[in-house]
């Protein structure tokens, strides 16, 4: 735990010369994804999934990494975004961009309503009540609204989507570039949040909630804001999934999948700025490889999580930071040794 704290302190007091790198990084990452798409053309769906899932994981990182509230109900917010987009496209309108906008609005409403209820609870209750909400949501999409959502058969609407101006995102090829652009914007905004006063207040929720009150903030409002942000990002990612696949089914909101985003966040490094990206890349990579061998892979996810928790606490981003610090110490030592000579 203290390691995590160190990591956060390090992230806050990042040296000025490294800030430039941190600004370049989003462009670098997205650029690498685009290069990868042309190097390995048959992995394009995988890259789109990485981009979408990392938005989901970044939202979870605000909740889990910054504020220390872990939720086992994130799939519900993901699938409610997906179903908003899907229901709009299947019954009401035909424009995918409006579907995405509606999903974001749904995320805002759900986050606001449930945030004001859930954020009164202590963190252990919070986790459990989210899991319960997720189960209820699954039941709702699967059975209660079966006439509208068609239950387990899923909802298909690819043929109903209309062309969008500038970039026709109905085609996977174009959708890839659309998602990359979205990821870049989200990353830049996320970086801004990480360094802003709001980001600092989010982190203080975890370390010292009383202090926030001394500083004149209302911790409850901050918590609701953080929860809503996480919900909005989850349902935004859900709508992107929905448009990418052209269909949705309740499978997306299953309780057993709640651990996925948690593992991705942990793997990248809890509470770090670009951790969720690497976590998603690592997690989906492992999933991609493992799914070739076994169909149900709870066992593997469980083992991987335990390994991360007990042996690899700081995650991939933390590993990078440590390696960088180690290298810097080496270089400094070399330089001072030279001077002494």
């Amino acid at each position, binding site marked *: *735990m203290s390691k995590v704290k160190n990591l956060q302190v390090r992230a806050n007091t990042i040296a000025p010369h490294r800030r430039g790198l941190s600004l370049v990084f989003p462009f670098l990452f997205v650029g690498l994804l685009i290069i990868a798409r042309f190097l390995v053309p048959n992995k394009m769906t995988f890259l789109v999934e990485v981009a979408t899932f990392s938005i989901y994981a970044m939202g979870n990182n605000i909740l*889990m990494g910054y504020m*220390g509230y*872990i939720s*086992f109900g994130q799939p519900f917010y993901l699938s409610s975004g997906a179903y908003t987009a899907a229901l709009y496209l299947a019954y009401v309108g035909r424009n995918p961009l409006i579907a995405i906008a509606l999903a974001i609005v749904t995320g805002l409403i759900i986050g606001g309503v449930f945030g004001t*209820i859930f954020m*009164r*609870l*202590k*963190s*252990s*209750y919070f*986790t*459990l*009540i989210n*899991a*319960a*909400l997720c*189960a*209820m949501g699954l*039941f709702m999409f699967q*059975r*209660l609204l079966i006439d509208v959502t068609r239950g387990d058969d899923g909802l298909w609407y690819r043929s109903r989507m209309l062309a969008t101006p500038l970039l026709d995102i109905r085609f996977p090829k174009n959708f890839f570039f659309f998602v990359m652009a979205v990821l870049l914007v989200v990353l830049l905004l996320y970086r801004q949040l990480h360094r802003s006063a709001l980001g600092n207040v989010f982190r203080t929720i975890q370390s010292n909630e009383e202090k926030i009150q001394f500083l004149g903030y209302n911790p409850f409002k901050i918590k609701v804001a953080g929860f809503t942000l996480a919900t909005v990002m989850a349902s935004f990612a859900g709508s992107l999934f929905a448009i990418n696949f052209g269909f949705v089914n309740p499978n997306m909101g299953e*309780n*057993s999948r709640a*651990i996925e985003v*948690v*593992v991705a966040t*942990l793997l990248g490094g809890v509470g770090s700025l670009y951790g969720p990206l690497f976590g998603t890349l690592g997690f989906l990579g492992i999933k991609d490889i493992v799914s070739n061998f076994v169909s*149900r*892979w*709870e*066992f*593997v*996810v*469980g*083992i991987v*999580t*335990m390994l991360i*928790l*007990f042996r690899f606490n700081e995650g991939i981003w933390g590993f990078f930071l440590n390696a960088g610090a180690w290298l810097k110490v080496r270089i400094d030592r070399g330089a001072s040794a030279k001077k002494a000579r």
Partner: protein
Amino acid sequence: MDKWITAVLYGFSSGAILFLVSLALSIGYGLMRVVNMEAMLYYSFGAYATYVVVSQTGSFILGAIVAMAIGALLGLLVETQLLRRLYHRKMMFTMVATYSTFLVGIGIIQMVWGLQPKPVSSPTTAIITILGANIPLYRLLVIATAIVAYILIQTMLNKTIIGRAIQAGVENRDNVQALGININKIFTGTFVVASAFAGLGGALNAPLIMVGPYMGFDMLLLAFITVIVGGLGSIKGTALSAILIGQVISVGGTIWGPLAYVAPFIAMFIVILVKPTGLMGVKSAAY
């Protein structure tokens, strides 16, 4: 009229199973302050043990005993190997660790028994008529078992020296250790007993449902609802809310089918909104 009597009695029997299963969660939280997500493994493995024993020997009682033994063994293993390492960690850490243990357990169940749900035949098919309603005798036996379990646990906690030591340990760990009592051993013992009851719950529930790898998931949510409604860490509260949730499921389902799934959640939301610590929860204990 007899429809409602049946509904209420069925509610008591599902409440009885809920109580047995939630005990491990409730005790894990009350004593060790660990939210034990993998507690439902004892339940699942207990049910599968019953399935194996019943299909091999045909004796349900032997199956239930084996289920209890398996539950106790797993509880001992998990407590000494995993939970010991988690006591001083943050809540988030313990939750993720125990949840991943749960997933590993489900994976093992899938590897050994496959995805196909397995039926377990009921030990008695006798039917008793109460006030014009036909009730299977088996359900009444389930209720009786849970009552015996409740009395046993309460007597153990309130009347014996060990029980007093446990209660003192919940209040102040260090002082109890200063008196020369090995608190770790006592915690392990209590946890093993609770896990054995969870295994028994699995065995008792096996003839009522199909035994499948994901049975733990469904029960996990219900058990969590039970523990949250009752107040984390209170055994009396757990018993009370198990009855409440059982009734809500059964009576709600009789009124309108889908209500059986949704009603427990609604009950939980209402209780949480009115009293965030649960029915019997103490404010200081709910962190």
